[in-house]
């Protein structure tokens, strides 16, 4: 990757979350928490229905980063807090911005996020996440 500058924004990556996606993630990721699979369990926990795994949302963000970097192995570190639930039918939008570049190691530090629009409001399933990406 050439010519990366502080302030650059990643191309956003969006997807509409479906039950099938979340079921596939539960299988592939190994997190079988029923709050992500059974509406009755989710309602008992105070949600309107099942929610996506935080790791589904973070995996989508990682895909956005890997696509920008051109190689998933370039992602040296990644962190995020899961701040808002993602429900079926929500459209999640992953993005990020380069906030620093270490010239010696050629590693970019990025602020990352995932947003969605619900009832006219912007929700932040991930806000102020951080990633370090090797540029060379």
């Amino acid at each position, binding site marked *: 990757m050439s010519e990366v500058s502080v302030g650059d924004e990643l191309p956003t990556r969006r997807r509409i979350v479906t039950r099938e996606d979340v079921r596939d993630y539960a299988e*592939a990721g190994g997190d079988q928490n029923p709050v992500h699979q059974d509406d009755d369990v989710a309602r008992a926990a105070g949600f309107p229905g099942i929610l996506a795994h935080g790791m589904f949302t973070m995996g989508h963000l990682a*895909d956005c980063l890997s696509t920008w970097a051109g190689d998933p192995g370039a992602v040296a*570190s990644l962190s995020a807090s*899961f701040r808002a639930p993602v429900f079926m039918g929500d459209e999640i939008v992953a993005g990020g911005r380069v906030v620093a570049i270490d010239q010696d190691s050629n590693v970019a530090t990025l602020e990352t996020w995932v947003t969605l629009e619900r009832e006219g409001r912007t929700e932040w399933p991930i806000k102020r996440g951080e990633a370090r990406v090797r540029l060379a």
Partner: protein
Amino acid sequence: MNASLVGKTYPEVPFLVDPDRLVAFSRVFGQLSGVPPTFVTVAEFLVFPQIMGDPDLHLDVRRVLHGSQEYVHHRSLIEGETLTVRSRLASIRTKGGNGFLTIETDLLGVGGDVACTARSTMIERGESA
């Protein structure tokens, strides 16, 4: 939760970077080759049932949600390699009526090198939440 368990380590388990599992995982997110950075969580979840179900921990798994996640990748995982998964209870806190359990996991290569360190924080939601 029983905060006196902080520092407890759990039996190591092997983790094969299984090509079929990798394909299934990658398909959920995209078409890129290589190992997605969050694939490490597959290894974490091999150990988590044992930790979260530890009878001494007193964690109510029915109230658990994943709160936050961090990875430091020292190197890429290699398709087909077998790593050792080593987990410890890094912290247990209570805040605002919720419990927070942080599990730190190292993935070790055959030579003992740390390929990746992952930190997962699980939230045990308060009874009234």
